[in-house]
């Protein structure tokens, strides 16, 4: 697996397309939960987490299962934890779960990339 992270609008998806050559990218904000076990790349993973929570599905278990079933997937997830802890309980819970899911994917990834201003930094493993 490969994980690409960074803040919003830092060039994560562009990197997946131009550098990794990925063309089939599904969007976590509207894809089927069941389809992701076969995908090449998923973007906005932090959003699929939100949708899972809304459907009362355990996002951490979902993520573990996804990592087992699709060990070659590329995952794009926004860094969402660098602000004030939200007052609203749902927002707080979502941010925490995104953090946990990100850690799970990172742990199971051979390579983790962090993007800033369109520049990739390899923070785990190496780019092949």
């Amino acid at each position, binding site marked *: 697996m490969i994980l690409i992270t960074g803040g919003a*609008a*830092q060039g994560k998806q562009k990197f997946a397309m131009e550098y990794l050559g990925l063309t089939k990218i599904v969007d976590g904000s509207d894809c089927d939960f069941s389809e992701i076990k076969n995908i090449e790349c998923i973007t906005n993973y932090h959003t699929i987490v939100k949708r899972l929570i809304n459907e009362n599905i355990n996002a951490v278990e979902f993520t573990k299962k996804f990592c087992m079933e699709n060990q070659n997937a590329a995952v794009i997830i*926004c860094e969402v934890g*660098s*602000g004030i802890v939200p007052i609203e309980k749902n927002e707080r819970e979502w941010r925490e779960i*995104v953090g946990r899911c990100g850690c799970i994917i990172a742990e199971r990834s051979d390579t983790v990339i962090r993007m800033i*201003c*369109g*520049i990739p930094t390899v923070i785990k493993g190496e780019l092949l």
Partner: protein
Amino acid sequence: MTTLITGGSKCGKSRYAERILDNYLGNKLYIATMKPYGKEAYIAIERHRKMRDGKGFVTVEKYTDIHEIPLTDNCAVILECIGNLCANEMFCDNKIIDPTEKIVNGVYRLSCIAKKMVIVTNQVGSDGIYYSEGTAKYIHILGEINQRISEFSDNVIECVYGIPILQKGVLL
């Protein structure tokens, strides 16, 4: 030589930008893009003025249209900051416009003329908050502008509590 400096709020970007030009002997220009609007802005501007005091900068206040600024060949420039410039260009007269090309071209033009160009920008998209449409658009556009400036910059440096982290090129 063009250097882009980024990072969150109050992370030592300005101090680092000024340090890069410490030993520069030619003309030094500081382009300030922040509108002096309200008490907090005045305090911030005053703090920055004090920091620059005695370092030989001529300050030019330009809130939009930075491409119009006349430069001499041998000058060094600090442009601070893209975050303010982007907001000033985007939100005017109750409408929202996309200033990406205008800003990128303007910065590129200044970078071509200046002997040393230091650009200060801001990281604003890592708090995971869903904002209203205008703000979300601002986050997106600023991110895009940063990527485009980073492309033609020789050096890109991220500051964390005053510590420079090299993203591209060399540390100065």
